[in-house]
């Protein structure tokens, strides 16, 4: 058979076990609970991306002058660039702590499909960085005089955008585990350009009240394709660090 000689993680695990038994979802729940408890005990994990986001937002009025017309025309781009960079900031912490204290090995040793467990780590990263940024973005929109009726499209586009960034960031973190954090940024940024373009056009379209649903659907499609593809590749990238 064509894939005879391969030993890809997804292919080597006996597929007959791939019936979504409760054990995988329970494990997913346990990982989410454990990491959320750890995250809330060390509150800096979800504060730093938030503060970084707000600082970058306040830089623009300081640098470009506080005129309302200028700021409200720049607002979509500024909010999106700040959200993108802030969610990239915390990418380093997705796998490094688990890899250091050895609990990452269980993902690959168990018979459960490990890319679902990697997806759990991505969800944790989104909950810790993506969600606070989403909440802070309404504050940022107020600061940058973004008209009120384009708040909802901004929140929707950021919801899809930050989750795609967490996925992409997880792959970047897996590839540059143990190396400098800037490497994972350099790897991930070129691939996040479509998300940035579509996210900003959602908000600009809603500014001059055109129909922006096309871009949202496109971002949703990218997320739908991204989750299986990127999680599988992240598993292979993580397995690289064990040699």
């Amino acid at each position, binding site marked *: 058979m064509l894939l005879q000689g391969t*030993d890809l993680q997804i292919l*080597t*695990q*006996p597929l007959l076990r791939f019936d979504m038994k409760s*054990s995988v979802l*329970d*494990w997913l729940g*346990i990982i989410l*609970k*454990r990491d959320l*408890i*750890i995250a809330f*005990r*060390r509150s800096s994990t979800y504060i730093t991306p938030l503060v970084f986001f707000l600082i970058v937002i306040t830089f623009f009025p300081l640098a470009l002058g506080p005129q309302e017309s200028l700021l409200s025309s720049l607002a979509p781009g500024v909010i999106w660039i700040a959200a993108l960079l802030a969610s990239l900031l915390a990418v380093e912490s997705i796998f490094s702590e688990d890899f*250091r*204290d*050895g*609990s990452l*090995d*269980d993902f*690959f*040793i*168990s*018979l459960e499909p490990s890319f679902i467990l990697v997806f759990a780590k991505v969800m944790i990263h989104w909950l810790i960085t993506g969600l606070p940024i989403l909440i802070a973005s309404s504050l940022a929109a107020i600061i940058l005089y973004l008209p009120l009726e384009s708040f909802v499209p901004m929140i929707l586009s950021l919801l899809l955008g930050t989750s795609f960034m967490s996925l992409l960031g997880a792959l970047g973190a897996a590839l540059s585990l143990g190396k400098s954090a800037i490497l994972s940024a350099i790897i991930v940024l070129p691939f996040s350009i479509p998300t940035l373009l579509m996210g900003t056009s959602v908000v600009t379209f809603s500014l001059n009240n055109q129909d922006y649903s096309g871009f949202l659907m496109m971002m949703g499609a990218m997320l739908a394709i991204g989750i299986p593809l990127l999680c599988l590749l992240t598993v292979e990238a993580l*397995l690289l660090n*064990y*040699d």
Partner: protein
Amino acid sequence: MLPNLKVENLSCVRSEKAIFKNLNFEVLPGQNLEIIGSNGSGKTTLLRMLLGLINKEEGIINWLDEDNNFNEYRSFDCFYQGHQMGIKNMLTVFENLKLTHNAKGMSEEDINKCLERVGLYKINEMASDLSVGQKKRISIARWLLKDFKIYFIDEPFTALDDSASDLIKEIINELNQKGSSFVITGHRSSNINATLIEI
């Protein structure tokens, strides 16, 4: 009695240096296996290769599956504990055991029983301010959470005081009675009844 794991002429070459050459061994239920070697002699690589974390170039690794024939893919869960014991410093002792997938569906006092067995009962502080010995005891308590056919433990006896190593030997014998076997690595034999393999 069929072995759970059968390895035939497994060898591993890293940067032109043969780390180990055609190893052959079997792990029978209830029997232990000890892999002795100096530092950097590939003990951890061997364990990870058995468990599929590392891609094996040559050699055959066969696992016994439900209907008693040998299959390349492992069909039962195993326990692996590397050098870092997988202890989360920001969790308390109890949480370190409760929030693991092995402890699924276990009640409070089951977990406390495991902790008591390892001498950590009623210690409920954060794992970060425990001594290394106590952290080792938490990782030993994890062995008792669920019964596995094979436990792969990487150097359990290093940096351990006598009381803890006796405890480990006790637990190993206890679990051997129940039919599970241990594959342990170390620098020198720790005289538990196990077949020895030199690397």
